[in-house]
């Protein structure tokens, strides 16, 4: 069979963004309050965040990772109220 798109050679980079612990998270609180109503009684608290999955062409070099980190602190997260973690997935 003919390869139409060629071999994919991308790496997935994940950026997880969370509100800082001291910032009120009413969405997380609403989820936390909904769980026991459904009979799930395991949670003492819930915080809600955002996850970005970024496909990067080729290998993720140190330079690319630095660029992604820069993008995360510039756009993906607001450092005033949020923290973020950048992870390369295998």
């Amino acid at each position, binding site marked *: 069979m003919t390869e139409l798109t060629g071999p994919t050679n991308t790496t997935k980079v994940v950026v997880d963004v969370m509100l800082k612990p001291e910032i009120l998270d009413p969405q997380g609180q609403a989820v936390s309050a909904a769980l026991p109503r459904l009979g799930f009684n395991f949670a003492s608290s819930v915080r809600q965040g955002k996850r970005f999955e970024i496909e990067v062409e080729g290998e993720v070099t140190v330079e690319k990772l630095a660029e992604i980190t820069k993008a995360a602190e510039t756009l993906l997260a*607001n450092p005033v109220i949020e923290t973020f973690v950048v992870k390369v997935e295998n």
Partner: protein
Amino acid sequence: MKVGVVTFPGSLDDRDAARAVRAVGIEAVALWHGDADLHGVDAVILPGGFSYGDYLRCGAISRFAPVMTTIMARAKEGMPLLGICNGFQILCESHLLPGALTRNHELHFLCRDQKLRIENNTSAWTSAFDAGQEIVIPLKNGEGSYQCDDATLESLEGEGQVVARYVGADPNGSRNLIAGITNAKRNIVGLMPHPEHAIDSLTGPTADGLPFFTSILTQMVGA
């Protein structure tokens, strides 16, 4: 004398803001988010709405619009700049004002006539008020909870940079009931409620919003 009102994709209150500007006898100039030219305006208003669909965070994408590059540079030089609601969110995302606006603490979108107290009448946009004056103007937002760290809050309070505070029950969980703040130079103001919707009794609950616009008229005539 001209005041520019920026339209982003998803802006909602640009027409009312321009109408409020005209109501005090100032020419309103429509500015477009994709055009970095400010067309000779003396001050700028960033209106309310849902710019770029509020995607990512409110104001996060608008802050990188071409027009914002020029506005940020001019505002740092002292050009009067008012951000209302979504405009306030854009000012925080631009780091022209400290802190951030987050989801209302009870999660509901609010739309009501809100009582405020003008705490600072020395800013470019509040000089026509009496200090401590109480006003009623519309408040309508889903993400209007003003948040900042303790050091920033202490600095804002200590330097008199809180421009307006909610009076009565806490509408959205803002720290210290903050409804609006200004920068150290007092030329930039961010305000969550909407003065442009309260300029006459025909279309608004009061005309209490009008002094925000007469303030800028006085500021520009005096300059």
